[in-house]
């Protein structure tokens, strides 16, 4: 720093240069890694979506929107998009309602809250592979416990779950709801603690019962959280891969193939990077739209709050 060149700088400029160097020194380790392994790939996923390439030595070729035309002309891709949407529809609302219900139940002053909370949260941290394996057995159509119970309560012809193309996605959704509701329950619990108790006291003075308090205080006060949970859940549903992969492998037929399953197969089994990237851009567009909805919603509630 104190070599001849810096002599031309005023002390003020010197300090500024030093500040810059120090600042960059702190940021650079992460910035370099992030640029190489995230930022550049993000840009390249757009580039590759308009290129044709199979990963070989042959150079990429610009093909315009042909990849998009390709995948939207592909029955399997349209199916994958549809399955992902139906999975989201079957998963988001039940997860949200159950998470809210559990949170409200746990928000009361009772002993052992921590134990119940652990029980509800536990499926969330268990790995998808282990969880998928056990649920596949529970769903076993001929002598699995779930169908045994269904037969016991009088359903003589229970669904064949993961081997039936109409029920396979339902089975995946059930597992997903079970696995993720504990996580969103915690999010709701945190929000519930933020509701001022004076609201409930005032309602009690007015003679409101428990249900009325829930209906007219708790649920309205939780609207921003509900909105947030819904957005998070929807995005999570559109990214689903592991659970489908370990439970059904996308089958039977292609009945549970989702968007990310499609991208994965195109890229890593048939090495068609162009169509795979086009699929990835479709996923990006969907997530972007959902995120934009979130931003506008947050703005709305932000305004309401002040």
């Amino acid at each position: 720093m104190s070599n001849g060149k810096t002599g031309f700088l005023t002390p003020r400029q010197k300090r500024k240069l030093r500040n810059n160097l120090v600042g960059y020194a702190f940021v650079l380790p992460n910035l370099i890694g992030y640029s190489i392994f995230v930022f550049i790939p993000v840009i390249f996923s757009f580039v590759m979506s308009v290129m044709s390439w199979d990963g070989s030595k042959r150079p990429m070729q610009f093909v315009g929107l042909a990849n998009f035309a390709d995948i939207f002309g592909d029955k399997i891709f349209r199916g994958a998009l549809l399955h992902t949407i139906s999975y989201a529809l079957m998963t988001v609302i039940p997860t949200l309602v159950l998470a809210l219900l559990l949170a409200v139940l746990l928000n009361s002053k009772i002993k052992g809250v921590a134990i119940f909370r652990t029980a509800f949260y536990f499926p969330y941290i268990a790995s998808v592979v282990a969880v998928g394996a056990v649920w596949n057995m529970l769903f076993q159509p001929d002598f699995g416990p779930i169908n045994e119970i269904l037969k016991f309560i009088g359903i003589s012809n229970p669904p064949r779950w993961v081997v039936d193309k109409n029920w396979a996605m339902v089975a995946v959704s059930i597992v997903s709801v079970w696995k993720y509701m504990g996580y969103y329950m915690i999010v709701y619990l945190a929000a519930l603690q933020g509701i001022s108790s004076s609201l409930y006291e005032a309602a009690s003075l007015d003679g409101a019962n428990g249900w009325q308090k829930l209906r007219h205080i708790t649920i309205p006060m939780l609207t921003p959280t509900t909105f947030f949970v819904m957005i998070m859940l929807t995005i999570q549903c559109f990214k689903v891969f592991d659970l489908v992969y370990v439970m059904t492998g996308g089958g039977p037929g292609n009945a549970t193939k989702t968007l990310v399953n499609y991208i994965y197969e195109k890229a890593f089994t048939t090495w068609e990077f162009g169509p795979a990237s086009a699929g990835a851009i479709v996923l990006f567009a969907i997530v972007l739209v959902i995120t934009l909805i979130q931003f506008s919603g947050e703005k709305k509630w932000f305004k309401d709050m002040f």
Partner: protein
Amino acid sequence: MSTKKKVIKIILYVLLVSLSVSMLVPFYWMVISSLKLNKDVFSIPMRWWPETMHPENYKVIWNKIPLITFFMNTAKLTVITTLVQLCTSCFAAYGFTKCKFVGRDIIFLMYVTTIAVPWQVYMVPQFILVSGMGLNDTHIGLILMQAFSAFGVFLIRQFYISIPDELCEAARIDGLNEFGIFRRIVFPLGKPAMATLIIFTFTNVWNDFMGPLIYLKTKERKTVQLGIRMFISQYGADYAWIMAASVCSLIPIVIVFLSCQRFFVEGVAASGIKG
């Protein structure tokens, strides 16, 4: 009034107990099945308690798959990724909050705009890039691709913002250099946020399936999740063994979870509410 309250409390307890039991039934079934004979897992009528215990299943699977290797691989990946992520995130967060430099806001904006891009969107070019570096099928490739996250920088930054600048200014006047301020003041104060990030990264890397699935091909380099998956497809009908292997894969995460539960819950609340 008080009897009514008591009744409500009892109903609440019954509801909570039955709900939490039903949440845990799959795990119970996993454990008892792992102690049965392969042919007895689906015995009819259903048995909720095995007639004879077969703990030797756990010994058998130990010889069928190199579980130790898988555990070591996963532990290595998890620890290194978490450490790199933690260090670089704290450094960067300090730079973004306590230092002033040209282009700071633009660089941070770059992080913000990419935080919402799902990994699945750029996993293909990322794989091509990492393969191009000759790191396909290596642990280093897998570590590098997930060690730098905008989420980590964001999380720590949110916390560092709440540390008053006056504190750093006072230390500066006392003659501490920037690294000293970071190491002695800001870094120790950031422990709660670090705990959240550690737990988050740890569970993510430990349970990660798709990353290793794409990157790791050699059996000796595979992770627990991949190894169990491989075992399941190899021994599809040996139900008890599959369950025993699954139980083994869950044990480490259960231990970590039960001992650091507070951080898990606080972490969800913190990252969940702030988005």
